[in-house]
């Protein structure tokens, strides 16, 4: 019994105390960017911002790889690599399973730059490559007070290093980018029409239940007549109740086509750092 109690105490203590070298939330990770280029320090001209954004979007369309730029002021007391590594890990840039994302971080107040490379791109954008890009393309321009040049040439160097054949603007379509059909013909025929029918019935029933819960909720909040009025617009396929969060893969285009949304890729601390 004493042993058991010790275990309990150990469990409780562990749950609170061993947070020491914890990985998540040692600092506040900024929200997942909604554009390919995010400039929180006002370092870039709007022309550069627009053109690099468009370039990175076209690049993702062509190759599937997600490359983004994020400019901030400082990482505060957090070491640069810890800050960018944890942030990249939580943003999930790149596709799930392929982990083919890369992020160019610039910190204007700290005078620091880092390229974070997802697991899947470590082979084509090696640490030595990242280091060379920082040394040759970014740092000299930052020193010359030319952040626009630094970002556009740094990004261009990253893209051509990852995809040597990538020529920019009108990219060739990539075969690997074609999404597989969700349900193949064989599965449907195996499953049978009857199964599809049953699924549909189940779907309708579930939607009815959701509808009645929603109705009850609205009655509770607004009273019956208002609820009835609001429910008129509630078709059974309406899904306005659940907002979709963008990170974590498989999102079905939650927002407009111009925006960036991360695909679920993971990072392992690859890349390089520099300062100017």
């Amino acid at each position: 019994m004493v042993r058991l109690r010790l275990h309990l105490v150990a469990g409780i203590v562990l749950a609170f105390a061993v947070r020491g070298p914890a990985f998540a939330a040692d600092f506040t990770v900024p929200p997942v960017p909604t554009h390919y280029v995010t400039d929180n320090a006002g370092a870039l001209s709007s022309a550069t911002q627009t053109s690099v954004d468009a370039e990175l979007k076209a690049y993702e369309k062509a190759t599937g790889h997600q490359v983004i730029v994020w400019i901030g002021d400082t990482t505060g007391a957090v070491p640069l690599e810890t800050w960018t590594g944890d942030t990249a890990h939580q943003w999930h840039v790149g596709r799930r399973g392929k982990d083919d994302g890369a992020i160019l971080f610039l910190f204007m107040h700290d005078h620091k730059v880092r390229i974070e490379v997802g697991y899947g791109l470590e082979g084509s954008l090696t640490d030595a490559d990242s280091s060379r890009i920082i040394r040759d393309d970014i740092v000299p321009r930052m020193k010359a007070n030319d952040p626009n040049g630094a970002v556009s040439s740094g990004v261009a160097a990253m893209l051509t290093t990852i995809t040597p054949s990538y020529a920019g603007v009108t990219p060739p379509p990539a075969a690997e980018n074609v999404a597989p059909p969700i349900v193949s013909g064989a599965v449907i025929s195996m499953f049978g029409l009857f199964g599809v029918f049953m699924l549909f019935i189940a779907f309708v029933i579930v939607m009815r239940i959701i509808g009645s819960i929603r109705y009850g909720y609205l009655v509770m909040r607004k009273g019956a007549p208002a609820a009835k009025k609001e429910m008129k617009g509630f078709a059974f396929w309406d899904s306005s109740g659940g907002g979709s969060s963008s990170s974590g893969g498989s999102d079905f285009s939650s927002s407009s086509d111009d925006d960036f949304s991360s695909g679920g890729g993971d990072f392992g601390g690859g890349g390089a750092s520099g300062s100017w």
Partner: protein
Amino acid sequence: MQQRSWIGPVAVIGIVVVIALFVGSAYNSLVTLGQAVDAQWGQVENVYQRRADLIPNLVATVKGAANFESSTYEAVAKARASVGQISPAVVQNAVNNPQDFAKYAAAQDQLGSALSRLLAVVENYPQLKATENFQTLQAQLEGTENRIAFERRKYNDVAQAFNTRRDTIPTVFFAGLFGSKFNEKPYFKAQAGAEQAPAVNFSP
């Protein structure tokens, strides 16, 4: 009245079934969390191996520099050899054996500090430092150190998830019944400077 006679046994069977389901699901959750720890431990081993693979090239490069202090690269080679002495099987099972874990982590930490001493000494050899070959090596080494810090933190996270589940109710009641399978997973202790990759300065 006769009907009541079988209520007792049925209730007992019911309770046994519920307990079995309970234990089963707790067991499964420990297995799942344990597999996450094993997988992450594999990642840690990978990045350590990656560092070890860079060392022959590094030693060859600094040896080529005129009268480079031999004691520094000899220390690196020695530390690498002592890491290599720990058998792969022991390393693989280290998450279930705190002593082996501590031994392995200490050997790797020693190699890490021998390497950073060597890199510090290179500062005195500007010609060596300026070569393309060395700059590439340095970028690779720094990247690898950063990966090591990163994977170690990830490992501590999954180990903590396992330990928390293991040491809380209800799993704590039976985790010990399965031998060393569900031992508490050891943690990497933060060593001075390990959380931070070596600073890079690209100014000429």
